[in-house]
């Protein structure tokens, strides 16, 4: 377990974060942007668990933060998808470029 240095695990989480950023920059479809956000949240979760396990093994705070982030991500996905489906009903498109006016 200790034969992997922390920096290698942090490499994975950093790479996952910036892959999510790339998706957020290039995608213009709301559902795929939501998927990129899920990737970013996952990389944050990995960071919390790894720091908790390796640097502060006698505490549990990283685990709690991970649990709360997962909960909030679930709530966020539910609300985001409700908004996306409502937008699709009124605009017939979920592209962020076509949804220009806020009031309909």
């Amino acid at each position, binding site marked *: *377990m*200790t*034969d*992997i*240095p*922390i*920096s*290698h695990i*942090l*490499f*994975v989480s*950093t*790479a*996952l974060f*910036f*892959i*999510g*950023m*790339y*998706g957020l*920059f*290039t995608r*213009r*479809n709301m*559902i*795929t942007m*939501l*998927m990129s956000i*899920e*990737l970013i949240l*996952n990389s944050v*979760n*990995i960071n919390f*668990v790894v720091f908790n*396990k*390796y*640097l502060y*093994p*006698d505490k*549990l705070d990283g*685990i*709690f933060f991970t649990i*709360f982030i*997962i*909960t*909030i*991500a*679930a*709530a966020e*996905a*539910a*609300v985001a*998808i*409700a908004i*996306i*489906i*409502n937008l*699709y*009903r009124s605009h017939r498109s*979920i592209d962020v470029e076509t949804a220009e006016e806020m009031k309909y």
Partner: protein
Amino acid sequence: MTASQVIFYILSAFILGTAILSVTTTKIFRSAIWLLFSLIGVAGLYFWLEVEFIAAVQIVVYVGGIVVLIIFSIFLTQQSGKEMVKPRMLRTIASVLAVLFGFALTYFLIYKNDFQAGDKSFDWSVGKIGNQMLATGENGYALPFEVVSILLLAAMVGCIVIAIKAPADVSVATKEQVEIKEKEIAE
């Protein structure tokens, strides 16, 4: 190389490869499926880190909940086999450069900061997590727990409020469509 190291590098390659495919593929349904594999890989990483509770939560909430929700919304909003519009070349190049630069900077900072792992083994159990989650004293997480439950309630109410306005819009749209069709038939 020990078996643990081999497993870690295979898992990392799996997570990153499927994540890259998820953000680059042009078909939205495939993108969701690659995201599913990436999230399963992250759950595998938690198993490798020996935090089985978080791995189980990851599988139940992300793989079983969020990805299924995303796939539902894909089916509700568009044809899953349709190709998405590709981003413009300039935007792709600029994004790749920005992301590579950000990654290089961040990883340079991480690499220079030499994290020293302690020798103590990570001591967690579901009982300890549950006790600390509902403790009100020092290091207790009772207040965040309550706040998160209020947040979930608010999200639930919010979803209902967003969804409940829709039937009027839909009926108006269908009435208009019916009128247009009637006109077409009359002509």
